[in-house]
């Protein structure tokens, strides 16, 4: 016959194993990304899924936004598993109408990027949507890399400001 402690210890072990199983299932669900995954940063605090823009010397952190002082600048985003499409929204201010491109890093070389023009040039922030096919995208440690390039920024006194980046992965 089990003593009081033995009974308690048995249920204690069940509870611990159950809790660990729950955590493990939660992690698997997060990794499978059922129904798609989306991440958003407004550059007001450190985001664990979206790292950047970087390098620091080219990007200045302001309150709730980042200022692109020189180019190119990069952003890395965690991708839990391989998705086929990424829908990206970037909100930026390019009041000097500087020619700029935003794109995703592809396989096949250091400078292999698929780039799209930044279309919005206005005194205020504008939001632009991009859709990237991720079939040929380079992935490192389950992260994909984006680049914002604008050679004109280096010589201009006017800069590009970014205050929101969001990404939604679609199967």
């Amino acid at each position, binding site marked *: 016959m089990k003593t009081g*402690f033995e009974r308690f*210890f048995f249920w*204690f*072990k069940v509870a*611990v*194993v159950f809790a*660990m199983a729950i*955590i*493990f299932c*939660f*992690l698997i669900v*997060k*990794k499978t990304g059922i129904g798609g995954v989306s991440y958003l940063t407004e550059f007001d605090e450190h985001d*664990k*899924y979206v790292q950047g823009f970087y390098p620091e010397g080219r990007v200045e952190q302001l309150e709730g936004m980042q200022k692109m002082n020189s180019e190119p600048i990069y952003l890395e985003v*965690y991708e*839990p598993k391989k998705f086929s499409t990424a829908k990206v929204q970037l909100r930026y201010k390019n009041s000097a109408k500087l020619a700029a491109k935003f794109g995703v890093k592809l396989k096949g070389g250091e400078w292999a990027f698929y780039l799209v023009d930044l279309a919005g040039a206005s005194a205020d922030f504008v939001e632009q949507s991009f859709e990237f096919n991720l079939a040929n995208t380079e992935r490192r*440690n*389950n*992260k994909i890399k984006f680049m914002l390039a604008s050679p004109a920024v280096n010589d201009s006194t006017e800069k590009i400001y970014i205050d929101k980046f969001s990404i939604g992965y679609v199967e």
Partner: protein
Amino acid sequence: MLSEKTKSNALRIVNFLFASCFLFWLILAVFELITPGFAIYYVDLSLFLIVGLFLFFITVMLKE
């Protein structure tokens, strides 16, 4: 002062927690190596080190 029986029971609990924490940490670490991002974005793996040290000190105290 704790009786020998209480100490023995407490040691069993602590040892079980220590073993299960270590095993769970090992599983998460292996999955993290296989597929980066599996655990680190959601579980602080260094927490296991702190819990492990805490349990180790309890074990030492109970054995004295």
